[in-house]
């Protein structure tokens, strides 16, 4: 296949905000149309993505081993981790909802962490992988990221509703902060990854 020229190779920069092409010159650091900063590629994309990704990996551990919430029912206290919450849903014959939570709070964060790792490795070592496939993977990762917030929102609703002292009460655990941080860090990691790098090295 004939190698198609990128806009950068032809001397153009696309404004990330308004989409207008500008000829590369020393005069413009900001887009003449909308005033946004001009970058041919996201600056320090790999470094920033790696930083957010590693923090995400680090916080994934406390997010899974510490309790995410504790439920008090008539004086009896039950402590749930993320996985424990899924098992208790299965025990109560709510398998579809358990699968939903499993996907949103275990599979999606793992897919994001491993997926972004793969993207970074491909760019860093210039592996000749199908760039179209990887761009598709990047889009899936960027799209599903927000759905991991499901667990956080569910806890916030339970905490706000079930607040009746000794009769019934839900209290957040330390894993909630860690898990929320994992979600935000992986969203940022995906945001700072520049998919155009995948195409710069592919033939």
């Amino acid at each position: 296949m004939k190698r198609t020229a990128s806009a950068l190779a032809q001397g153009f920069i696309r404004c990330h905000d308004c989409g207008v092409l500008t000829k590369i010159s020393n005069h413009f650091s900001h887009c003449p149309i909308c005033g946004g900063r001009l970058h041919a590629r996201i600056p320090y994309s790999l470094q920033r993505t790696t930083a957010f990704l590693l923090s995400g990996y680090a916080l994934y551990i406390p997010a899974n081993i510490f309790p995410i919430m504790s439920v008090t029912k008539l004086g009896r206290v039950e402590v749930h981790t993320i996985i424990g919450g899924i098992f208790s849903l299965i025990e109560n014959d709510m398998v579809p909802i358990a699968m939903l939570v499993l996907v949103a709070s275990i599979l999606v964060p793992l897919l994001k962490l491993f997926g972004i790792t793969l993207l970074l490795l491909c760019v860093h070592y210039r592996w000749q992988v199908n760039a179209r496939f990887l761009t598709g993977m990047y889009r899936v990762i960027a799209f599903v990221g927000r759905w991991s917030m499901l667990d956080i929102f569910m806890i916030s609703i339970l905490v706000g509703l079930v607040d009746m002292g000794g009769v019934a009460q839900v209290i957040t655990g330390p894993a909630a902060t860690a898990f929320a941080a994992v979600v935000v860090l992986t969203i940022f990691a995906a945001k700072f990854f520049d998919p155009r790098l995948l195409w710069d090295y592919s033939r």
Partner: protein
Amino acid sequence: MQKINFDACPECDVLLNRSAPNFGENAHCPRCGYLLQRPRKQSIEKTLALSIAGLVLLIPANLMPLIGIKILGNTNDGTLWSGVVMLMNEKMWGVALLVFLSSILFPLVNIILSLLISAHLHFNKGNQYLAAWMRWLQHFEEWAMLEVYMLGIIVACVKLSSLADLKFGLGLFAYAALLIITVMLSSNLDRVLFWQHIRQAQKSFS
């Protein structure tokens, strides 16, 4: 400044001839498949109408109870805010802030920005802040997570159904309507068209 008659794909940076798809057509990048533009009929007017509707619905969705529960004679109503307030009381500042931003503040900011931009464009009013507003809207858009919050409500209800009697409040219906409005808003907003109009508005303004 000279006119450049090319476009570049935002995700693979391939240089493209400028395309002008008709209504009902989608323009995709030939190399990576990115959806470049999907023109909508009367995008500006629809955005204006939908953001007014959204602004009205925000009031009951924020103030009226979403769900009420009853456990052994004890009742409690939950609004959008009660979760945030309880998280603050428990000193979970980070989680409280995140929930507040993504379920309350950013949906509000997005609707206000859509309203401001589409109103200025519809009435042909120039404003030096139009481009900045549009940039903010593009950055904030992905942090409004109403649809994920809705799924959170559903999962919470299923979890509670064995423990308590549930009652759906008017706020929940307002919230569901608001969710539909915001989804329609983001699917109707044609970014390429909006930026073209903002460019014209700026030229006539300066």
